[in-house]
């Protein structure tokens, strides 16, 4: 239930502006890959191109290939809706649907893809997804209450439950802990460690300790200056990136000398 992603020579544009230049990267299945780098280096933009969420912004487009187990996401006739149902996403700020109950939030994606689901199946799925997101024990008695009544960390785990309920191949996380307190962050990090048994996880983070704690491989993105495109500087095992990077810029960044 997880696939690898291979990106070949990807350029991302906003209109005429080149935002991310020439990225090639191989993301392994059933592993956690972290993207780190200073603000504005294009790591979030690049993450969004992995499930075509960048297309929400008018004028955004890409050149190059993103292969999900060999299938090009940008091939002719590929529907972004199908891509997104296979590559889920968790956002920077928790965004459960405020008008839905906790239960309906978990089922939101499932009901899109598979309209007819019996109540029994739905119950099983809700429990499995919430357990998978380490949230079941906290909410099992109030599944019919609104998701917006939960704490920030719980809301974010609810969003993860919602994402895994559709059984995606890959889960993308765009700074999932940046709006959370340290204890909630720890809960999410534990969860990421468990998720990689089943899913391919890609996480963007500003927190280098977090990248070091949760990821197997780390990609460092950087930008030469304002108005210049972001680039992938170095990619390798997390241990290597943090202890013995090849590039000077990577070493400066991970040791806190800039950014």
């Amino acid at each position, binding site marked *: 239930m997880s696939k690898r992603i291979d990106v070949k020579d990807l350029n991302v544009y906003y209109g005429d502006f080149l935002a991310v230049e020439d990225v090639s990267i191989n993301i392994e299945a059933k592993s956690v890959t972290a993207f780190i780098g200073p603000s504005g280096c294009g790591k979030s933009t690049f993450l969004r191109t992995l*499930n075509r*969420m960048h297309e*929400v912004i*008018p004028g955004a487009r890409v050149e190059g290939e993103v292969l999900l187990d060999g299938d090009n996401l940008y091939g002719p006739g590929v529907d972004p*809706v*199908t891509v*997104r*149902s*296979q590559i*889920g*996403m968790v*956002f920077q*700020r928790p*965004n*459960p*649907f*405020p*008008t*839905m*109950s906790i239960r309906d939030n978990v089922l*939101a*994606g499932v009901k*899109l*893809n598979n309209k007819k689901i019996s109540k029994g199946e739905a119950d099983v799925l809700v429990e499995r997804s919430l357990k998978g997101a380490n949230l079941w024990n906290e909410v099992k008695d109030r599944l019919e*209450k*609104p998701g*917006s*009544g939960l704490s920030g960390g719980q809301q974010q785990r609810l*969003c993860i439950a*919602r*994402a895994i309920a*559709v059984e995606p191949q890959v889960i993308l996380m765009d700074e999932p802990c940046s709006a959370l307190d340290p204890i909630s962050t720890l809960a999410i990090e534990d969860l990421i460690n468990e998720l990689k048994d089943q899913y391919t996880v890609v996480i963007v983070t500003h927190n280098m300790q977090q990248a070091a704690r949760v990821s197997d491989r780390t990609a460092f993105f950087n930008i030469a200056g304002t108005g210049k495109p972001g680039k992938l500087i170095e990619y390798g095992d997390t241990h290597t990136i943090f202890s013995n990077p090849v590039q000077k810029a990577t070493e400066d960044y991970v040791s806190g000398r800039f950014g």
Partner: protein
Amino acid sequence: MTATPLTSTQGAGRAGDKVFSGATLAAGCLILAVLFGVALFLVVQAIPALTAPADKIQGGQGFFAYIWPIVIGTLIAAAIALVIATPIAIGVALFISHFAPRGLASGLGYVVDLLAAIPSVVYGAWGAAFLAKEISPAYGWLAANMGWLPIFQGPASTTGKTILTAGIVLAVMVLPIITSLSREIFLQTPKLHEEAALALGATRWEMIKMAVLPFARPGIISAVMLGLGRALGETMAVALVLSSGALTASLIQSGNQTIAAEIALNFPEASGLKVSTLIAAGLVLFIITLAVNMIARWVITRHKEFSGAN
């Protein structure tokens, strides 16, 4: 550096605060006073009609017998207007906010706002002189083919000056109100929720069903209620379009009357008890509008827990 004493109550900031809070309080009280004044006027002026013996009231059967057909007529006309206008308005608003390319969207929004600027007498003249004539063949068809429904019972009016025509004209008039308010609400849908839906693999329409419409629901209700307020109170267009008469179930025969048009048509020549009968009718319209607004508020607050405001 000298420390500022904490107990100081002087300074321009304090005075400004007081003036401002006084001004807002006065404005708030003024609204209440005006509303109370209008209500008081209506009640006082209506009392003679409400207490007069039945045979003195127009129709000779008392105020209640006089008022209820035009209350029903008012509600029918407003209901027709909302049934036609609401889906179109929501559709147009969604098109402008989520489907149209940016250039087209702003142009279209401007045109819709322009519709609201047309005076109601112009709509009335258009309805009476053009729409009624053009639409009467359709009424003939409805009477012939769907006449078994009481609301389409024949014989259809040949002039087309029916409550259905009046309702259609009202629909055109409330359309811009509902459209522009709904559009504003749709545009305020948090990007976060739209992206949440899209990232789950929702199509654009599914995203609208999941994120936009639930978020906008209270706003849509408010917009519809504002439209309803206009439809209930609209006078000139109905007075010009409708060939009024006794209450009938059929929407395509001449007949029926609305409160506002009844007041406008009869007030200039009224005197004595007739004036207070008409003002009592106005009081009834005021109460209906008030009730509609309160029901709308109740509907909105009923789902507060799920509104996203918490």
